[in-house]
């Protein structure tokens, strides 16, 4: 099963990560910082959408009354 929500999140997080690396060596680049902020916003939204469907992405974001972190697919397993 192709997971569009996950693909979106992976895309935004990749862009966010690369922007962060660029900013490490170019901390005063306003254009890069603006791009970073846009990706930050997109990533946050995609993350919330993904977590609503599949549960917490980290052991710090288990916000329900039960422990959901252990459930669902683990990343290395693929779709099978």
């Amino acid at each position, binding site marked *: 099963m192709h997971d569009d929500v996950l693909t979106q999140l992976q895309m935004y997080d990749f862009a966010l990560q690369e922007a962060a690396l660029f900013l490490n060596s170019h901390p005063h680049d306003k254009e890069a910082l603006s791009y970073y902020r846009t990706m930050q916003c997109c990533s946050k939204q995609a993350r919330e959408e993904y977590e609503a469907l599949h549960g917490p*992405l980290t052991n710090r974001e288990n916000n329900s009354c039960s422990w959901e972190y252990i459930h669902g697919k683990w990343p290395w397993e693929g779709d099978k």
Partner: protein
Amino acid sequence: MWVYEKKLQFPVQIEHPDPSFAKIVITQIGGPDGELSASMRYLNQRYAMPYDRVKAMLTDIGTEELAHLEMVSAIVYQLTRNLSVDEIKKAGFDAYYVDHTTGIWPQAASGAPFTSTYFQSKGDPITDLMEDMAADGAALYDQH
């Protein structure tokens, strides 16, 4: 400290197991220019780095290499799922299988175990950066 995110950096979806290919790809886990070596290189070298920009860079790249390690490990894991004894023998995967079954163990394609001799950490930023270029730049670009 680090916090684990329960997703891969890029999707890994192997449709058909291929233990012959797994024998080669495993070098990108535990070989001399593999992801484990890359991660340990940057994360250990950062302590000698005096500049904030580069401290940040070494920390973030060393961390990202761990995400690469996870992707390559997922590739090897999926390449070696549900194998028959015949498939293991035919692919020459039996030499690995006898020691690790299909467990992920960091080694080079030759079978040499991962070792910290694959990277350097000299306490001198210029020396370390030269080593980074040799390891993560030239070596991989030449091979691909």
